[in-house]
């Protein structure tokens, strides 16, 4: 009987401690309830394979037309920018889709997050990947 009571006391003790921490945990979550994600849009463009491919396509198109390889001339730079405009339109949509899937409250540029003293998971790579998938068929439009 004594052993049984002792066992019951231990069990009750454990339950009280468990609920105490559970309550504290809930309080912790209730206080900090916003999901903030970080996305570096400039880096997205820098690591996007579609952007890299379009740049190569632009260079080869220029070489074909003018015989000059290397740095793009203003005409081809403008054409590249125009081809990349689809990407810039798609970027916020991709970020929104990812943010919704992750139930995020906000997505911020790293500089903004730093300015406000906020931090969160970095989704830059995921954004670049999703963008590349979405724009896989994007072609360079030669001038």
């Amino acid at each position: 009987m004594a052993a049984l009571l002792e066992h019951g006391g231990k069990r009750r003790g454990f339950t009280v401690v468990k609920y105490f921490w559970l309550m504290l945990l809930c309080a912790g979550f209730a206080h900090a309830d916003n999901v903030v994600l970080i996305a570096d849009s400039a880096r997205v463009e820098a690591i996007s394979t579609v952007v890299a491919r379009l740049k190569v396509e632009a260079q080869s198109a220029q070489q074909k037309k003018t015989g000059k390889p290397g740095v793009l001339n203003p005409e081809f730079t403008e054409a590249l920018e125009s081809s990349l405009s689809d990407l810039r339109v798609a970027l916020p949509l991709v970020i929104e889709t990812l943010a919704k899937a992750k139930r995020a409250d906000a997505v911020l540029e790293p500089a903004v997050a730093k300015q406000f003293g906020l931090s969160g998971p970095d989704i830059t790579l995921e954004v670049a990947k999703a963008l590349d998938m979405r724009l896989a068929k994007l072609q360079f439009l030669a001038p």
Partner: protein
Amino acid sequence: MKSIFVGLFLVVAGTAHAASILISDTRDAFDRVNAMKGLLHDVDTRIQAIQTGYELAVKPLSAELEQLRKPGQNGQNQQRKAALLLQIAGLQKNASLAQQAVGQANEKALAQIDTAIQAIEAELKKERKADAVLRAQDTLYFNAQCACNITNEIYKRLNARLPKLALAIK
């Protein structure tokens, strides 16, 4: 002992993983802030009045100038022509200065509204114990349905505190 460590870990994880933020989206303020709507109407009315006043004043002068420019008019009218041109230029300058004054008064009033918005944001930050108040333009995305969206509350308080704003033109 084990449960204490587990609990501590969970609490730290819970509080450290995210911060509490508030977001305000006042990009549609011109439609939702009553003081701004009134201001916009006031600016339009005044600019229109300046334009109409200018046109009414210039019309007879331009007509006279036109007459003087017709072929067959002798050179004695040169002085009158010069005087008319000077008068028209003066009217133009006055109208331009008046429009400028309206623009400056409008900017001042808009700054007053922005200051009021900032004060409300600070209040809400304190009330809701938030770590930061972000504006929609600071974000790449924000969830408009989030409880952290304080836009409606800002408009509600702003319209109550600043129902009307007059242009203070010097």
